């Protein structure tokens, strides 16, 4: 397993702080959405077999299977058949559900999502995970001390804002 120690530099950037760009609300929202999407992602890396796609060496699901049952195989269909016939992304499914639910006056997938909490949010340091008192002027990220602020400035701050 190849894991490399990440580098956390600690140079002092406080003086530069004033000059730093302030990220507007829209960008902050966009960034937050991106983070939330990544928290839902299946993989962070590319398919390690991607280069096999064009060759005939691509492993097939069927190779892993014995004959399923003693039944006639005439109705057996490929996985691709179903994928093509029922191909809908999640957003499409949600939209369809909402439209149908409205027409039939029933509760839909979107209706049951939890409301916002009336309790105040807590704030943790993005760097070390302990309680944080301060937030970054540029991007709003929370940090707990100057050391963590430095780390934040040197690593993640504004990197995502592009």
């Amino acid at each position, binding site marked *: 397993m190849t894991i490399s120690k990440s580098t956390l530099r600690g140079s002092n950037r406080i003086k530069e702080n004033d000059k730093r760009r302030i990220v507007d609300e829209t960008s902050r929202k966009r960034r937050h959405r991106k983070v939330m999407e990544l928290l839902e992602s299946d993989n962070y890396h590319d398919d390690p077999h991607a280069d096999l796609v064009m060759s005939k060496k691509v492993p097939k699901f069927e190779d892993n299977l014995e004959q399923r049952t003693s039944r006639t195989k005439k109705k057996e269909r490929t996985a691709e058949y179903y994928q093509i016939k029922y191909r809908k992304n999640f957003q499409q499914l949600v939209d369809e559900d909402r439209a149908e639910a409205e027409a039939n006056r*029933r509760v839909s997938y979107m209706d049951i999502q939890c409301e916002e909490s009336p309790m105040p949010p807590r704030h943790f340091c993005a760097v070390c995970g302990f309680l944080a008192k301060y937030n970054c002027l540029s991007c709003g990220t929370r940090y707990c001390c100057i050391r963590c602020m430095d780390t934040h400035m040197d690593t993640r701050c504004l990197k995502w804002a592009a």
Partner: protein
Amino acid sequence: MDRSKVKRRGSSIGPNQPEPKLQKEININAVVVDNGAYSIKVGLSTEAHPTLVPNCIMKAKAERKRLFIGDQINECRDCSGLYFLLPCERGYITKWDVQKPIWDYIFSKKVCPIDEYPVVITQPLFNFNSIQDCMDEIFFEEYEVSSMFRLNPTDLAYLKYARDHNLPKTTPCIIIDTGFSFTHIIPYINGNKYLNAIRRLNVGGKLLTNHLKDIISYRQYNVMEETYVINQVKEDTCYVAQDVKKELTIAAKSGIENNIVRNYVLPDFNNIRRGYILENNSDTKENEENCQILRLNNERFVVPEILFHPSDIGMKSMGIAEAVVKSILCCPKQYQEDLSKNIVVIGGNCNFKGFKERMMAELRSLLPHLWDVKLYQPEDPITYSWDGGKSLLKMTDFKSCLVTKEEYEELGSMIIQQRFNSWMTDNSLVEEESQEKNQENYRYLDWLKGKTVFGKEDPIDVKDECEQEDSLLKAQTNSQDTGSHNLAENVDNVQQPAADLELKTKASLKNIENTIVKEFDQEKDQPSSNFSMQTELFPFGTGSYL
């Protein structure tokens, strides 16, 4: 029962069970499938335990000649950098080219052949029509099952709980299912799901693992590609704190005073196949010397905290305990007290140490003091729903619920889906005066005022109270994003900070109620109308990805 004896092709009544004579209970056998997005629990109802098969196909870097379906991953020598093909998106099957081969594998002789048995399979709440169409086609047309029934995993859990505890249909229960993709909170009243009070929290095990991956990658090693390993790290080391503030204080200490920090030996897939906690924090055995050690401190409890406070990562959502309370208070008044006596929690996230205790403590503190609060967590919260399949099959009228292949062919998908969808669902209760509901909300907020956000009793100081007011204002401002028609009213409130908290509370709740904060709506980038007030909107950086 010998499976080979049951072979009658084209039978219209499914498995040929002897007709019930004087028995009160008809016992049908069936293949029960709890089709979770993380693991499929499958087995014949006569078996004591289901077989657990991961609901995914994996690709290994080292083995380029094959794919690993489900539990075949145990044959994989090197599980580093595993690439996952998951059939589900937010808990719903969208990738049929992944789900189908997994089912083919599961229903092969290797795991659990269907033969002539009826199939009972779970589907998530509000399973979308086209997903159901595809399931129908696969099971009836390709697998040629004699008969099938589909229901939600919480239905099975409810049936099992009611049966095991001898509860009549009139006893309401609330089932919390906290799994891989999400957490559902579903009250059952008179044996039916009470749709108005159902809640879904978009936090599940997948999000927690990904978050842990993210913070470890930022603080120690780059493990972004090691979902498989970090999921095990999560299972082995994470727990739910009873008092987060206290826990954080301990975690901040060094040396022997910190009894939270753990060193975790990461697998190298050479000598060590599965990682583990280093028993004595300093000593390493010989074969551990070349291994990479992960140091886990506050990560151990901060990660599961997201279940209780999604706002920790900037999600605008209640936590699991709050949502349960909210759900109970959305039910008709006469059932509320009984609901709080029959709270059942299932799903993989229950397995975090301390989960049940924290859940109980929060529910106890959020629900009215005079109410009796009882929380039941089964010994195995993962297989509880599958077990519920047995309770389902013992229901006297179950046989008539099964949809046969002939019925599918005659009536078509739409009719039979209505049968599945309306089962244990009471739509009549949906149309109700919302006035009462709003009243409940005010009461709910009254309780919340003064509640601590750190788990245990914790006197709120003045600053906290200010923050609370702030957050209410913020909530108000946020909901303005979707429509600025009452902007004036909002500005008014800001200009009079001394205005009665109660008033603001009501106004902000009304706004929340009106918009039911929908993530998808927020996707549309709308220029914020009053920027200056929102500077702290996303205070916590989950960390962007470099």
